[in-house]
């Protein structure tokens, strides 16, 4: 496996809940991210899936330094970037860029496309000399499949898919090594999603990018990712290669999640086992003791309320070498195939 480029250890983000207007008093905290570990290797795509409120977007925002973690480290090439300020922070930011979910709010409506894509060069003037910027912006437009003549247009003159391409071009401008994409296609029409996914894959090869790809759509994540982490209530429940997670899941949450995904194949609906989870996700202000998934888990036992399962290879698979031997935070991990094996259509 390639060298690690980004290492996240014990990442925590708690938002204090306060009352009072002028004199604030803390009454609790929203545990949006509550101890997340993962490693991103050069040139790979790490997918992070989870339901809304699981903290995946907060992780993304911490990775690009839009939020300061409450605790934990984010090491970029061995250096902890959470404590950086000033010049050093700016330099790291050049290398970790973000693509946002909503193509309608992520582009400033008062700026032309040329200004939007060229802004990174104004903030980091050392990257491109002034006279060269116009040409570079046009090149970027071409790279993402837009007509370079559109440089003087405004965002509202473009469709959602085209806007997302503009957002990607802006993310590429500084030639970053890592791109954090937070639900980059979920706001797009089905027929346009594939265009953007293909574009992202092509750019990854062309520019040797490493992706953190955050989404709630498990099919898209499988398509684009090399490894996948499944988040629930601020923690990673299971992480492994796409084959390990999708074909050999050992965590009950992953299994339930996978079984719930509608598959575009009416034949499959007859011979597919559905694990329907009870209830709703608990509030992140009041996380259950022990295993945080136990309140909805179909195999929760007494022990689950007492013991916090660690994210590691479960004991029963520790001596095996098969695809079931991957990190899974469950005390009663058990392999279960929920996605029917590939059929040729």
């Amino acid at each position: 496996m390639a060298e690690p480029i980004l290492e996240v250890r014990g990442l925590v983000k708690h938002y204090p809940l306060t009352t009072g207007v002028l004199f604030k008093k803390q009454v609790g905290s929203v545990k949006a991210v509550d101890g997340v570990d993962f490693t991103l290797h050069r040139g790979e795509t790490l997918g992070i899936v989870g339901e809304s409120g699981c903290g995946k977007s907060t992780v993304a925002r911490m990775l690009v330094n839009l939020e300061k973690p409450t605790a934990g480290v984010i090491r970029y090439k061995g250096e902890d970037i959470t404590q950086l300020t000033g010049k050093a922070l700016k330099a790291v930011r050049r290398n970790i860029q973000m693509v946002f979910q909503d193509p309608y709010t992520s582009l400033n409506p008062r700026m032309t496309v040329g200004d939007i894509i060229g802004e990174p060069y104004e903030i980091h003037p050392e990257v491109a000399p002034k006279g060269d910027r116009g040409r570079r912006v046009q090149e970027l437009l071409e790279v993402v499949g837009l007509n370079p003549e559109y440089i003087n247009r405004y965002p509202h003159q473009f469709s959602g898919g085209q806007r997302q391409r503009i957002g990607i071009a802006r993310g590429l401008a500084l030639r970053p090594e890592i791109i954090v994409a937070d639900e980059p296609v979920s706001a797009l029409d089905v027929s346009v999603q594939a265009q953007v996914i293909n574009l992202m894959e092509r750019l990854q090869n062309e520019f040797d990018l490493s992706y953190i790809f955050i989404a709630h759509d498990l099919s898209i994540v499988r398509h684009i990712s090399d490894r996948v982490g499944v988040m629930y209530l601020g923690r990673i429940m299971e992480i492994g290669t796409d084959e390990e997670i999708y074909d050999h899941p050992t965590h009950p949450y992953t299994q339930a999640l996978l079984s719930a995904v509608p598959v575009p194949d009416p034949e499959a609906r007859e011979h597919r086992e559905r694990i329907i989870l009870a209830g709703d996700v608990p509030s992140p202000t009041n996380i259950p003791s022990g295993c945080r998934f136990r309140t909805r888990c179909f195999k929760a036992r007494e022990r689950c309320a007492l013991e916090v399962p660690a994210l590691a290879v479960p004991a029963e698979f520790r001596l095996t070498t098969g695809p079931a031997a991957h990190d899974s935070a469950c005390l009663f991990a058990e392999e279960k195939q929920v996605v029917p094996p590939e059929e040729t259509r």
Partner: protein
Amino acid sequence: MSDPREPARAIAGTGMGGAMDLAASEAETLERAPGGPDGGAPTGKPRSLWSDAWHDLRRNPVFLVSALVILFLIFISLWPSAIASGSPLRCDLAKAQEGSQPGAPFGYDGQGCDVYTRTVYGARTSVAVGVCATLGVAVLGSVLGGLAGFFGGVWDSILSRITDIFFAIPVVLGGLVLLSVVTSSTIWPVIGFMVLLGWPQISRIARGAVITAKQNDYVQAARALGASNSRLLLRHIAPNAVAPVIVVATIALGTYIALEATLSYLGVGLKPPSVSWGIDISAASPYIRNAPHALLWPSGALAVTVLAFIMLGDAVRDALDPRLR
């Protein structure tokens, strides 16, 4: 992703002329577009939201009427002598309360001054007070409100409480108390008073607009690029937060003109020899039975002016409302 706003979005989408030209001519066919992907050159011109707004305004009769009235007002405040030859201060008691006649189309007031000339010259005071007060209010209010909204925290809380206190002060009563001790007969004390009491209104609007703009992803995107606070504020937030401030300020301009007249009427605003509609209304009101024209013309001018600014503000609001786009 498709949603129940679908028709709205489909229509909103079609509301943007440029986008449609684009969608129609834009092929976006190729994964990698070499040069111009579409044979037919795109025809849509680049259009900013401001030019879109202007495009709308030009077709809005409310805007056209109010803008004409306001342009005319500005013209006569700059060059009153262009349409009124006499001096507003030359009065002839012998002609007191006389009605319309050749050379004095609006007649004469109780002091025998020409109502037409005084009404024309009164526009200058009204416009000057309105414009200066609005500028002061807009600058002070948007700077304080904008900074509070952007940085938040303790200063924001303190500013919010201060604006609450100012909102609790009754304007006319405040004017009666504060301005009664002023002896200067220039327009500046009145303007100063309006700025003092008016800025919290704009500050509140600006604060809200900045907070809304601040939450947009494009501000986060610029922040993630490493943009400085001043860049975020000036380049990304201010241009997107300025619209509501402009709208409220335009409407406020009208109300400041009315407020000046009110204060002058009550005797604490401008004082003779200043020429102001408020002073004239005040002077004419005792003679309303004998010389209603002396009251009618300055009041009418005042009403039309205030209405024009309020209508202009409404038209601008409609044109800038992003929900219509």
